[in-house]
């Protein structure tokens, strides 16, 4: 049986053996970078993701080893790094909404919907956007979001509800559009 150390065990080991922290990097860099790239674009994400792991390394002694997973902690550090780059994120979101998509949906209708969603995201309070994107893009559970942002779980629920409601409102005008999620049908 191969025993794999938990993140908490690896972080604990890195207090005395600094080199052990590289394993945390290997386990989570792609995930953290992917999330940041989606939010602020690849160029800035490279700097921010590197900063996240340097900061995590410096603060590893403060990691709560009662929590097995380090990912929420890393997302929390990433959230702090993102705060200074709100404009970059807003530009990125608007650009994403303009990006042509290849799917079975009607491209025009889809583009209109995504533009509306991107604008709604931009207009959300920062903390609401953070909660929503950690939920939708990072796939964190309520408890993990609470841990990442250091807020109560109840606050996560209420903020998430509010953010989703805001998105539903902007989607309402598009509800009469017929949008298929099926793959396109090809005929000879």
């Amino acid at each position, binding site marked *: 049986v191969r025993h794999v150390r938990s993140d908490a065990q690896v972080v604990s080991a890195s207090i005395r053996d*600094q*080199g052990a*922290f*590289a*394993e945390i*990097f*290997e386990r989570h*860099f*792609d995930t953290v*970078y*992917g999330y940041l*790239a*989606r939010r602020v674009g*690849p160029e800035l*994400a*490279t*700097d921010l*993701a*590197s*900063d996240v*792991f*340097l900061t995590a*390394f*410096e603060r590893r002694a403060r990691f709560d080893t009662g929590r097995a997973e380090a990912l929420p902690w890393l997302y929390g550090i990433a959230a702090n790094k993102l705060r200074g780059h709100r404009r970059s994120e807003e530009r*990125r*979101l608007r650009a*994403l*909404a303009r*990006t042509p*998509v290849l*799917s079975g949906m009607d491209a025009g209708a889809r583009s209109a*919907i*995504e533009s509306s*969603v*991107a604008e709604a*995201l931009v207009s959300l309070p920062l903390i609401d956007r953070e909660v*929503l*994107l950690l939920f*939708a*893009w990072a796939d964190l559970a309520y408890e993990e979001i609470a841990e990442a942002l250091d807020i109560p779980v109840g606050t996560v629920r209420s903020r998430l509800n509010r953010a*989703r409601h805001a*998105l*539903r409102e902007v*989607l309402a005008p598009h509800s009469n559009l017929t*949008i298929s*999620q099926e793959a396109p049908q090809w005929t000879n």
Partner: protein
Amino acid sequence: MDELTVLRDLGPATDPGTASARLVARAALDRRIADRRSWLRRPLAVGITTASAAVMAGGAFALSQYVFVGSPASQAVERQVEQIDGVKATLRSHARTTGVLVDQTKAAVVLDTVAGPAYLWVAPTRGGGYCQYLDLANGTQPGGGPNLTGGCTTGHPFALDASFPWTRVGEKTVALVYGYVQQPATTVQIHFQSGATKSADINDGYFMVEVPAGDGPGSADQVTSVDALTSNGTVVATQVKGRIAPTARS
């Protein structure tokens, strides 16, 4: 289709630049780990050797008088450069040595700091990268050998590659800014929170300068960034302290 489905489809979930981002970030983390590891150990080593410190310090100073810019490394320094490379090769992430050309190790900068002589030993690697190892003559290991800290790069990924270490040697605290800068830079300028600056010359791309330890005006804690400048004063790269080194333009 609900709002979460639309949101999850917004933008690519993966980025093709992950591999290059990972390389740059990993290099930065490795260097931070290497800096912390050696510099954390150094005061311990000094503490252990208290009884023989006077004798060894005297010896180190005597030796240091024969180290100039461009001096080849002693066998003891070469052995440790080789050893560090070998240890790195045992780490999962490295898998092999960096290919440092040990016999080409030479002193790029020699400084007389508050804690005695400091050397920046540099060496090329087979893959076209470079290695930098910081050495305080009075911060020797228990056996009396050099106690190097530093590491290597693969290629020349950074336009400006500065480190900001500090440590205690006996009763003294020494803080340095050292690193590598690519052409066409001819000098580096260190910026402090107060707006003051301090310049350092570049020798074959390498620089090292001492800054006062502590948190007063113009001290190590007040360093904010380093600029690389050309001979006509044009800033070609800036590295903000605490941020990743600026990458070189290909």
